């Protein structure tokens, strides 16, 4: 089995946002993931040499429409399950209110534990212990795609006067950094300034995503 040329197959963020990422068709295990996690998952596959693990991503913009995630995951599982020995879903609850878990249970596939990617990047226990309710979170992907996921969908590009209605109760933007990237940190800091929030950067690396994928890759 040949190793996939990862660097050349990763689409740009705009495509990950609107279209997602197709499976290569190689490997025994398929990860069905959120497009916002594509870079991190491909990096872990490369770092660990998991040639038997394939990945397909659903459009990352589903993040803004969590009610659509369970059906999209169901469709992807049904589409791919005959072609792989094992499937796993790289989503946490992600605002589906338990619906995605019910869908995955129904389909007999595992998913990532926890409420959302902020929690599993930070580490579930640590995130819960912080009990932060006035923080707004960005990951590497969301920092790069801030305009597509936050600024424009909330209409702030057209109506900046709505800012206080959306973010008036928030105090801080927390950038959960998966990588050491000064330019991305500067971008996240700029996002905080645009929202009128204090800024904090936390380096998380891949957090619980790494251990979860290790578990699935080893099985």
């Amino acid at each position, binding site marked *: 089995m040949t190793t996939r040329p990862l660097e050349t197959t990763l689409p740009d963020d705009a495509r990950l946002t609107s279209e997602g990422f197709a499976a290569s068709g190689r490997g025994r295990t398929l990860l069905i993931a959120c497009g916002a996690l594509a870079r991190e998952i491909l990096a872990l596959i490369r770092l660990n040499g998991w040639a038997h693990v394939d990945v397909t991503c659903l459009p990352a913009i589903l993040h803004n429409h969590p009610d659509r995630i369970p059906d999209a995951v169901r469709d992807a599982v049904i589409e791919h399950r005959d072609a792989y020995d094992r499937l796993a879903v790289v989503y946490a609850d992600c605002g589906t209110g338990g619906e995605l878990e019910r869908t995955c249970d129904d389909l007999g596939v595992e998913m990532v534990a926890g409420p959302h990617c902020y929690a599993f990047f930070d580490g579930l226990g640590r995130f819960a212990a912080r009990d932060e309710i*006035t923080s707004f979170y960005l990951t590497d992907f969301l920092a790069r795609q801030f305009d597509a996921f936050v600024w424009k969908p909330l209409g702030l590009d057209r109506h900046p006067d709505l800012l206080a209605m959306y973010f008036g109760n928030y105090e801080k933007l927390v950038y959960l950094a998966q990588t050491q990237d000064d330019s991305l940190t500067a971008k996240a800091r700029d996002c905080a300034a645009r929202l009128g929030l204090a800024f904090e950067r936390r380096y998380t690396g891949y957090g619980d995503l790494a251990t979860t994928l290790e578990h699935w890759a080893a099985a």
Partner: protein
Amino acid sequence: MADEDDEIILSELDDDELVQQMFDDLYDGLKEEIEEGVNILLDRGWTPYDVLTKALVGGMTIVGNDFRDGILFVPEVLLAANAMKGGMAILKPLLAETGAPRMGKMVIGTVKGDIHDIGKNLVSMMMEGAGFEVVDLGINNPVEKYLDALKAEDADILGMSALLTTTMPYMKVVIDTMKEQGIRDNYIVLVGGAPLNEEFGRAIGADAYCRDAAVAVETAKQFIARKHNQMAAG
């Protein structure tokens, strides 16, 4: 040239035209125009209650319907709400003075652990527009705060809001505490928020899940009417 010639002078419109124009201005989120329209109607002798219900609530109902039907989105609804708020600020003190009809009293707040209040604020405003007295507890409310306010305000309705799937289960904590204290049936409990649905509302023991502000108003009216009927029959 065309712009200047086409500019609409609100004070030159007759009442029907002005109300229609106010519907358009609400739809477009034009706060200053709404404030001007409210003042013109009041100057013409309209009661504050009529201005509220016929011009503002009428206009917001169109906005709410188009939001429900996917024609308008959250930013546009917020702009419309902001415009209505401008009109409400003028009318609210006058409504109190003129003894507008009162439908009932609602205590409303976002649940503990949740700071999101856009939906709650829309519900508060529309409930006030429909003649309910609203006591808004704001965000991040523990159970004691809800129960204390219900008692202190002698409220009819409890409204709870949540945006997060991690915080919406707290609504059940509040309702269960009400049951433990034997006060659950003293109040109409309405719940709402983006991740909720009817099934969740039923499961936690609420009287109703309200999909949006307009539904909250209609549901509250129905439950209050039912309560009055029961009292009359009893």
